[in-house]
């Protein structure tokens, strides 16, 4: 007895869900067909290397991001010193730099005959070899530098929400500063720290560009090779299945810790921490730490990108097809983000407004892509088209579909939270004033959630721009985007040529950072004000 128009939303949402979850289903389907002989061959040729590599990388990045993220969050939340307001947000700038751009920048800085090599030789002569970036530690440091802001942001939030009475209580009980740090602060905010580390580890599992540029084989890189160099879809999906399960596990861990976010703090009086004013010596020390981290993670590499871009411009090293690359990038990222927003509307609406079992299931199955690294999505889509839609192969549609699968969880979430902020009675009022479901959505809901839609679209746009592995595997022949150019030029050691595309990606990456800062500063806007 429901109205017809509401019912139309359900098949639409289910249609999107099927599109989005097909790649995973096809990977599962082919992985089931993998026989023991193939598993053994895979183990001998690939897994024996990439398994320990990946585990080691996860552990080292987990450790390093924890150190960097917790230290910075601690300094920012517990001390008051000059410039704190700036450092508080500047410290997340490295989030704007994709791993492969940072890897390329340092590979170029430390290249033979480059500035780092020369300086090293002047200082140490031939006594000591410069440590190589193309190593376990090189990769670990690069990936830690781009991912520690996750740990910082979540730890900061945790520490800020901590009730200071516990610290005061411990103090009165005569517990020393260092023991209080560990036994009260860290232990009470560990869910936030753990969620941040899990998130950083997920990014490591999904990373392709960094490990590929630094020639450190992990799962993503192995899947890419298996698929493109050997065209072995079975082997690729077998590897993909392991990768998916690991990322899924990390995702569950992250959700678990985020859900716990806070220990049950009794709901009595909330005492906020008053940051301690520090001496000028300590101010200097803290400033040095912040400068070092941001310098290495953002300022130095970006300065070099700027310098190389100028050099390239001066000596004609800029690719003549640059405008074409920019056009391609904006076109696919724009279309991809537009589709991700539009296609998310039915499921987000149903989940926000009528959260029954079916709608919840559709919503969560549509967010599966969040835990899928780019190469996995690419393999899944290639398998799908090779089996059911061969004519889609090599077309732009496949690439756009990959973006939608990967990034629709972001728009789903952005739309849902915007819809939830619009009072339900506004839609009810529209209905009773004579507007049907569609007119109500079009004239009342959509205008009111426009800011949320726009934010979601911008974040996805930039994510599409930065996306490397799926773009690399699915793009039509000779269709180059900025990310693809950075990777290809860097792989061929054309350092200067890669600089400008890389710089453009970093600049675009600053936009979501601004959004994060804005949102955290003001808290989510409650209700939509009309200008």
């Amino acid at each position, binding site marked *: *007895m*429901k*109205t017809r128009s509401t019912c139309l939303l359900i098949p639409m949402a289910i249609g999107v869900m099927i599109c989005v979850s097909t790649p995973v289903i096809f990977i599962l389907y082919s992985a089931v067909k993998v026989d023991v002989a193939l598993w053994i061959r895979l183990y001998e040729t690939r897994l024996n290397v990439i398994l320990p590599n990946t585990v080691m990388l996860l552990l080292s990045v987990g450790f390093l991001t924890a150190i960097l993220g917790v230290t910075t969050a601690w300094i920012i939340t517990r001390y008051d010193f000059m410039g704190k307001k700036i450092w508080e947000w500047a410290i997340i700038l490295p989030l704007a730099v994709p791993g492969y751009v940072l890897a390329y920048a340092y590979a170029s800085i430390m290249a033979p005959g480059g500035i780092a090599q020369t300086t090293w030789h002047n200082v140490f002569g031939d006594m000591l070899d410069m440590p190589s970036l193309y190593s376990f530690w090189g990769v670990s440091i690069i990936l830690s530098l781009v991912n520690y802001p996750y740990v910082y942001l979540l730890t900061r939030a945790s520490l800020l929400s901590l009730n200071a009475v516990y610290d005061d209580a411990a103090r009165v009980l005569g517990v020393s500063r260092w023991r209080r740090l560990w036994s009260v602060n860290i232990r009470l905010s560990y869910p936030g720290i753990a969620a941040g580390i899990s998130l950083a580890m997920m990014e490591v599992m999904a990373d392709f560009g960094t490990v590929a540029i630094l020639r450190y084989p992990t799962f993503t890189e192995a899947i890419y090779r298996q698929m493109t160099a050997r065209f072995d879809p079975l082997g690729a999906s077998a590897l993909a299945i392991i990768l998916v399960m690991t990322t899924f596990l990390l995702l569950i861990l992250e959700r678990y810790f985020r859900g716990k976010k806070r220990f049950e703090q009794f709901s009595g009086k909330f005492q906020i921490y008053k940051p301690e004013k520090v001496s000028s010596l300590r101010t200097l020390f803290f400033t040095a730490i912040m400068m070092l981290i941001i310098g290495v993670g953002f300022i130095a590499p970006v300065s070099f990108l700027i310098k190389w871009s100028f050099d390239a411009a001066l000596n004609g090293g800029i690719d003549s097809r640059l405008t074409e690359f920019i056009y391609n990038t904006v076109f696919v990222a724009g279309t991809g983000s537009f589709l991700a927003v539009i296609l998310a509307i039915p499921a987000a609406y149903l989940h926000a407004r009528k959260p*029954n079992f079916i709608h919840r299931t559709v919503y969560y199955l549509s967010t599966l892509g969040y835990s899928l690294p780019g190469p996995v999505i690419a393999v899944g889509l290639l398998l799908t088209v090779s089996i059911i839609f061969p004519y889609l192969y090599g077309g732009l549609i496949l690439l756009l579909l990959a973006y939608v699968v990967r990034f629709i969880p972001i728009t789903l979430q952005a739309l849902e939270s915007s819809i939830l902020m619009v*009072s339900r*009675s*506004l839609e*009810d*009022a*529209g*209905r*009773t*004033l*004579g*507007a*049907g479901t569609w007119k109500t959505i079009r*004239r*009342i809901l959509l*205008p*009111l959630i426009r800011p949320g839609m726009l934010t979601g679209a911008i974040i996805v746009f930039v994510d599409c721009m930065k996306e490397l592995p799926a773009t690399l595997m699915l793009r039509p022949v000779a269709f180059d985007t900025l990310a693809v150019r950075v990777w290809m030029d860097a792989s061929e050691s054309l350092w200067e040529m890669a600089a400008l595309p890389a710089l453009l990606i970093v600049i675009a990456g600053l936009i979501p950072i601004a959004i994060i800062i804005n949102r955290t500063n003001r808290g989510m806007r409650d*209700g*939509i*004000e*009309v200008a």
Partner: protein
Amino acid sequence: MVLRLLKEKMRITPTETFHVSMKNITKSYDQYIDAVSGLTLEIRRGEFFSLLGPSGCGKTTILRILAGLEVPDKGSVKIGDISVAGEAWIPPEKRGVGIVFQDYALFPHMTIFENIAFGLKGCSKKEQKERVMEQLEMVGIIRIANCYPHELSGGQQQRVALARAIVLFPKVMLLDEPFSSLDADLRLELRQETRKILKEKNITTILVTHDQEEAFSLSDRVGVLDKGKLEQVGTPDEIYHKPETRFVANFVGRADFVRGFIQDNVVSSDIGIFKCNDHNLYNKEEVDLMIRPDDVDFTVNANGDAVITESQFLGASVIYTLRMPGGKIIHSMKPSTQIKAVGTKVRIDVDPVHIIIFPSTGGNRSTICFEEDKKNSHKRC
């Protein structure tokens, strides 16, 4: 096409006889089993009817079912001669039912003019403007047509919400606690103003509220709801003075229950001995007598057997807590012209016209017909 004609008929012919009837309505949600269960209710044309009950009693669900915003699990709804739910289904946009929501639900991205004009279809720009202005004039806020809702005060928002619903000539108007977020003074003013406008236009109105004073002061009839069931329907006077259940007795005002004993149609209790005309009462049975503080009076008397233990000053009146000889408590309301001190000895004087008897074992009202047994009134048990 049929629906269109129907809509025209419902909206445009103002002289049509009209009333709302709900039969055996049942509605459950995931988390709420039986938000409404087996509810039957009929509302006369042009009547101002209130649904009164505590939060979570299902009153808003009934309103949403009437508007077509919820589909009942069972039962049917008719507006006039037309079945809108149950046998047939007419969606909210075609029902011709207006609502004023608790939060007013003014569209924040539209001006007041656009808000009121939102539902006006099929008429020229000029006509639209005329109708909107006419409404704004009616509610007395013509200046604000080009403002946005957030620039308005609560009272103005409420008026706009009413105007927006009335401009479509609804035959039924639903008010979902529309006065609850206003200041006390403004609330009184707007209540009467709203009632006047709706009565003038002879619009059948159903108000949902948890405030008995509001329901009493506005309504022709009141329906008291508890846990999804109608406890009683009647005029405000009937609801207050002749409650059928203990829930109603307690919900609509302060009530004391005093234990009594019934024999040969005479009830004896701590507050007096009364005759009862109802011969259906069982003999030799314990009963509870319900009495309201406004029917309990007392006189200061040094030999009185009751004593004031507490007094609660309410402004115009004072509520005294009196302890009777057996230690039982009863409340009395008196004008605050002369305030009696705590500890004063008094003699209780009860006006029995509104005393009601409930069986002591629980259950609904037994009888209401009383007069004081003058012969025995000095004797107390």
